[in-house]
């Protein structure tokens, strides 16, 4: 093995999806025996690049060299045959089968007689070698998430991988498990394995990586950065950038009374783990308050609790002085909570516009009246005034520029931007007092982004309180009057004049140093 040859060399990789340039002429080099971190925000193109490497996608341009030879994989099976294995964020294991059975799954050997005990020994030995200790006979469902990850790693090692790709491996792990994973990674690197470590967590990258490549919006912003020659602030800047996209006209205005107050709110995620840990924040009338954070740090759960879709474990959500959900809220049947919140004037632009925000096979009209069908003039006793509904829908379609042949068109025929305009039309036309806007511009093209942003600013001018959750820092800074930063279910700090680097640091887990309160709203209101 010549040490001068790189394990992986990707040259000028370009991959385009409809409307998105996911990878724009990316160069990436992995040396033998190193741990190389691929750093970037969600959507920066990390996973796309790795999928090009493992043959899941075909790059449109560029070349891939493995150990100095030009390669082109058609499938992950090809890639593993050449020693490249990937541990995905979502494990691909059969819960009812044992560790050994999972490792052997899909291999040609054993051919006929399943001599499991023979392989049990082999797998246990392999685990021991790399510090991945595990009982080969245990069933997957009995294992913790950290142990399941070990099985995934053993799976690719067993297939003879020398190049390992780990996609955000720490996202699912507890702190001690992260420590153990790092030990394993170091052992493997010392044995000559080359490792690509995908992450957006600066602390971890600084701890485990030898070198770093930073991606942002499909481009390399820094390559071959030595960990010893950099710091977290610089990495944060490289990762989130600082260019403002649009000049938005945001008029100065003094915020009014507090509309939304969240008090020590805690909640769990779907897996029953703590997602929100005692969050407090507030939003005033005529104010856009941004919530910055890397996806998966509790933003979705927060929006769901505020809109009544998820029950909090502690704390209160107070709208106009009245507790809607939480300890002090009036006891209402769970099925009625959402309705009560809608009736209190809370609009919700959901994160998932196709699966939550709209009904794909119903018409545009039916989708537009989703919140208004209970009240006159759309409702007429038990009936829906079909003509009135159509007229209302038609006028919304025109004024919100929803591009569709007719209002009878099913919602699934709309593009992302038009679907989002439909949701905004519906939510804004209810004249909300409070609007929870989740990732309102995610995945939209430039024109649609601008129209959505203008609508939010118009709502601010009209005196609505808006909580804006976005992963686009530029957008948050441009639109928000104040910004809170959320990390692992806690508020890291609050800023009025936000600086990108500082935000970036807080988003990756650093607490605000000077914790002067920007807006003492809570105190004078209670």
């Amino acid at each position, binding site marked *: 093995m010549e040490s001068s040859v790189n394990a992986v060399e990707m040259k000028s990789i370009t991959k385009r999806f409809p409307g998105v340039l996911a990878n724009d002429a990316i160069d990436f080099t992995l040396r033998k025996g190193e741990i190389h971190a691929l750093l970037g925000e969600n959507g920066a193109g990390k996973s796309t690049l790795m999928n090009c490497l493992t043959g899941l996608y075909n790059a449109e341009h560029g070349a891939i060299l493995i150990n100095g030879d030009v390669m082109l994989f058609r499938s992950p099976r090809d890639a593993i045959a050449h020693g490249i294995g990937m541990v995905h964020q979502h494990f691909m294991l059969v819960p009812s089968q044992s560790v050994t059975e999972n490792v052997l799954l899909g291999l040609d050997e054993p051919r006929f007689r399943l001599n499991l005990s023979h392989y049990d020994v082999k797998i246990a030995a392999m685990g021991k070698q790399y510090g991945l200790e595990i009982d080969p006979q245990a069933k997957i469902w009995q294992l913790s998430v950290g142990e399941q990850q070990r099985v995934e790693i053993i799976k690719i090692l067993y297939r003879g991988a020398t190049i390992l790709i780990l996609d955000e491996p720490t996202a699912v792990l507890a702190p001690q498990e992260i420590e153990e994973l790092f030990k394993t990674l170091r052992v493997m690197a010392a044995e000559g394995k080359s490792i690509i470590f995908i992450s957006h967590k600066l602390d971890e990258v600084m701890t485990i990586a030898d070198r770093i490549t930073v991606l942002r919006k499909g481009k390399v912003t820094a390559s071959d950065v030595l960990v010893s020659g950099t710091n977290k602030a610089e990495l944060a800047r490289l990762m989130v950038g600082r260019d403002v996209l649009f000049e938005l006209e945001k008029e100065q205005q003094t915020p009014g009374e507090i509309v939304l107050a969240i008090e020590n709110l805690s909640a769990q995620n779907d897996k029953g783990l703590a997602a929100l840990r005692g969050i407090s924040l507030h939003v005033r009338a005529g104010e856009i308050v941004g919530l910055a954070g890397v996806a998966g740090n509790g933003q979705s759960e927060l929006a769901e609790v505020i809109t009544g*879709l998820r029950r909090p474990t502690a704390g209160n959500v107070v709208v106009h002085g009245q507790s809607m959900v939480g300890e002090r809220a009036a006891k209402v049947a769970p099925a009625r909570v*959402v309705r009560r919140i809608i009736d209190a004037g809370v609009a*919700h632009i959901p994160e998932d516009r196709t699966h939550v925000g*709209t009904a794909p096979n119903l018409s545009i009209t039916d989708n537009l009246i989703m919140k208004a069908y209970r009240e006159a003039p759309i409702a007429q006793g038990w009936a*829906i005034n*079909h003509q009135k509904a159509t007229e209302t829908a038609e006028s919304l379609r025109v004024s919100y520029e929803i591009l569709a042949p007719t209002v009878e068109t099913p919602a699934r025929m709309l593009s992302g931007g038009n679907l989002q305009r439909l949701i905004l039309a519906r939510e804004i036309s209810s004249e909300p007092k409070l609007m929870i806007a989740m990732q309102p511009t995610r995945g939209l093209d430039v024109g649609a982004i601008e129209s959505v942003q203008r609508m939010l600013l118009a709502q601010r001018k009209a005196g609505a309180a808006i909580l804006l959750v976005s992963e686009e820092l530029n957008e948050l800074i441009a639109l928000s009057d104040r910004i809170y930063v959320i990390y692992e279910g806690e508020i890291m700090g609050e800023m009025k004049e936000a600086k990108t680097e500082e935000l970036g640091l807080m988003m990756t887990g650093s607490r605000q140093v000077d914790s002067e309160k920007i807006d003492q709203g809570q105190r004078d209101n209670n």
Partner: protein
Amino acid sequence: MDQSKWLGLAVSTGAVVVALILGGVILFLVGGNPVRTYIFMAKASFGSLGVLSDTLTKATPLILTGLACAIAFRMRLWNIGAEGQFFLGAFGASAVVLTPLLGADTSPWIMLPAMMLAGALAGALWGFIPGYLKARFDVNEIISSLMMNYIAIAWNNFFIFAVWSEGGFQMSPQFPRSAWLPRLTNYSQSAPILQGLTTHMGLIIGLVAAVIIWWIVFRSRWGYEIRLIGDNPRAARYAGINIARNTILVMMLSGALAGLAGMSEISGVVHRLQGSISPGYGFTGIIIAWLAKLNPLIIIPVSILFGALILAGREIQPSGIPTLLQGIILVSLIASDFLLRYKIRFTKRTQEA
């Protein structure tokens, strides 16, 4: 009519045609002449006023059970229990006559509405049970409603064999005339052409029900909620709709319609409670609802088609052929759904450099 609706109907019709062709192949293989058989079947069900009337009589319970399935399926509630709800509806209507809650000399104007109400309520109760279990404990309604069928049949048998048995036979005494739904033949004195025609008032009940269900689904607030839940329950929850309550209500409405079918059948055709009142009307309703793409008005012609198939089944040998055709129609239909949902494209594997 927009293109997707038009395409849906075309594909449904295509499925029936394909089924007839496949059925023809089977007829040919067993030594029959497919064309002659089909002509004979058509004549047997539409050839004269008499058989047309019989076809409509057969279609009557199918319209109601078809509607029962369609309203539940609209909300993606898989009520497989229309058969049991049909039996319970027949039981409820019989109870009015046989208990007797109302005497034999009661005016039909009171007797018949009372039987309809009792039948619908009994069916609704049979729908309520799986609906409540689903809403409250997330019990799979397919299994529970299916199992409820057997309970319903056994329940009816108990009454037929023991309580209301007529002289030890497995049937109840015949209902008094006041409990019969009027038939066309009743009016043959003023219009001789109606002589012997069996079509009864149940058909009117079915047609009115179809219009009412169409109105509920497409023009009422409740129907809007049902359609929204059916298309995307997460969006419905987001819009503040009470899914559990609607689950129970829709199952009850579904049960009530099937119960009404049971009432109409014993009061309009059989005139007594007995074991063999349904050749699987509740299950055929499932096929009809699908074939009509859950549209309440289209259920009417589809039911007539199936009524004809059932009638023709008595005329040709082997009599299994119409049942076989029903099965083939359902399979073709489910297969054709694939064509609507997916677009089949033929592509070449991209060649790599």
